[in-house]
Every structure is written in structure tokens, then in C-alpha cells.
């Protein structure tokens, strides 16, 4: 069991460090075990260095930088233990427009591995996907589909 944890950890660590550089367009990040001798209950720590900055603990990064780092972790897990589909609920909310575009391009690279359903309020994400479902709340307090393809309306 512990071996499995250790090998999985090191696989994810390797992928995470790659994905981080891809998402941030540079910089570097590290995953580390707080106490390697106590595999049974050691914690995991993330240190990250956005391009041009010093290496810091996650708490000192900005809201958007931390969100992008967490997204890198989710995609590292995807690479190591893929699922056929992913449902992501407004994970782009803290990102600025440039990072929303960068993230949506990143998603497109993964469509060979998996299928994605994303909930979003961001225009730059909406223009990047293949199909959009619009929902609305009726005056009866129930959800209905607005139209099957808003994509024409967004352009």
C-alpha cells in the first residue's frame, strides 16, 4: 500500500512540475512530502515560482496564481490516473482574461485523453468550446434549457 502511494506520488510530482510550466508559460514548481520517513501519514506541500519571481509557499501567491497552480495539480492527476470525462464548475472564476484563454487552449490539448464539461461565466471560455447549453430559471423556480447552441449568439 505504501509503495503504491509513493510511486503514485512521484508520478504525479513529475507531471505536476511539467504541467505547471506549461500553464504559467515558464517558472517552476515542486511537490514535496513533508516527512518522507512517515509515508503512512505525511502531508504534501506545494511550492511554486511563477516566471520572474522567487520560489514561495502557496499562501504568498495571488488568488489567480494559486488557482492556476491547483488546476495544474488536477491535470497532473488526470495524466497519472485518467478519467473518461471531467466536469469542472467555474474553475476559471479567479483567472484574468489572458489566463482564461491560456487555460482554454490547454483544455483543447487534452481532448484526446478525455471529454470535458465546463460551467463558466467567462466569454473567453465560451468562445473556445464546441457546444454550449444555456440554462434559465423560470418564474416557477425550475431550470429549463434556453437554446441548444448559444455559440452563434456569442460571436
Amino acid at each position: 500500500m505504501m509503495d503504491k502511494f509513493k510511486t503514485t506520488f512521484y508520478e504525479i510530482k513529475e507531471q505536476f512540475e511539467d504541467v505547471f510550466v506549461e500553464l504559467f508559460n515558464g517558472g517552476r514548481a515542486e511537490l514535496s512530502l513533508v516527512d518522507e520517513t512517515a509515508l503512512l501519514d505525511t502531508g504534501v506541500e506545494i511550492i511554486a515560482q511563477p516566471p520572474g519571481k522567487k520560489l514561495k509557499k502557496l499562501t504568498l501567491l495571488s488568488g489567480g496564481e494559486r488557482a492556476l497552480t491547483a488546476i495544474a495539480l488536477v491535470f497532473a492527476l488526470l495524466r497519472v490516473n485518467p478519467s473518461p470525462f471531467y466536469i469542472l464548475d467555474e474553475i476559471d472564476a479567479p483567472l484574468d482574461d489572458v489566463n482564461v484563454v491560456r487555460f482554454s487552449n490547454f483544455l483543447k490539448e487534452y481532448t484526446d485523453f478525455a471529454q470535458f464539461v465546463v460551467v463558466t461565466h467567462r466569454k473567453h471560455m465560451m468562445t473556445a468550446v464546441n457546444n454550449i447549453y444555456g440554462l434559465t430559471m423560470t418564474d416557477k423556480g425550475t431550470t429549463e434549457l434556453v437554446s441548444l447552441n448559444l455559440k452563434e449568439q456569442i460571436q
Partner: protein
Amino acid sequence: MFLKKIKIKGFKSFAKTINLQFDTPITAIVGPNGSGKSNIVDAARWVLGEQSAKNLRGTEMADVIFSGSEKLPPSSSAEVSLYLDNSERVLDIETDEVKISREVTEDGQSDYLINDSKCRLKDVNELLMDTGLGNNSYSIVSQGKITQIINSKPENLRELFEEAA
């Protein structure tokens, strides 16, 4: 294997049946605040076996049933079905499509079904074993979960790695 469709009826704000096809690589769900987007995410998490009402933003399992509104009476049950493509027989069933369903009545009792025949949750979990699907935490990232991952202490972050192992 991919997700072809989700059908939701009587679950949270879906008093009327709704069918969403997912036949493209990336599909977006958009709409005003409170229109029911996260309820779809909850529906997917629920049908795959979620046992904690708290993870579905409720206090008890019967909270997932449409509770009525100013103009409509409450529903008596909720039902969600996921339609998975199985043309490559990734799942150990001899059909091109596999339908996984869950129903709950007001007493909070859930029934699970595979291709419309009743089964136990254990059967659903066995069917989905090794596909990466199931009630694990990172293939369905609920609203606010990313913030939770960032703010978690090292010993909590570890749980993500245990699930992947």
C-alpha cells in the same frame, strides 16, 4: 468510453425532465446565477454514488428532490441517468451504450440501476472500477473546490494522492 447524455428529473431545480447530450469534446454550461448549472454537477456526482448530503450542499439525502416553488408542488422522487458510450467494451457489459441510474424517494431511500435493471451501489462501483470514474474527488470539481484545494493543509492535500493511488 465517453459521456453521451445525462437525463435529470425531479432532482433539485429540475422539476421537469431535462436531457443534455454531450457529443463533443468540450461542452460549456452557461446561465445566470441560480439557474441550475451546479445542480447538474451535483446530479452527476449523485448518480455515481455520492453518499454525503453535505457534498451535495444539502443536510439530508431527500434534499435533492425538487422541493417545490411558489407555483409548483414538490416532486415525490428524483431520478438521474448517465448514458455512457461502450462501443469499445471498456465496461464489462455487452451493449454499445450503458445507462447508469439512481432514484430516490421522500424517505431518502436510493435505488441504483444498470441498463434499467435494479442493482446495488456495489455493482455500479465494480462496473466503473479502474475507469477513473466514480465518486473520486478530482474528475468532478465542484464549485469552490479549487479554492479548497489551495487552502488545504499538507495533511489534507495528501488525500488527493491517496485517491489516485
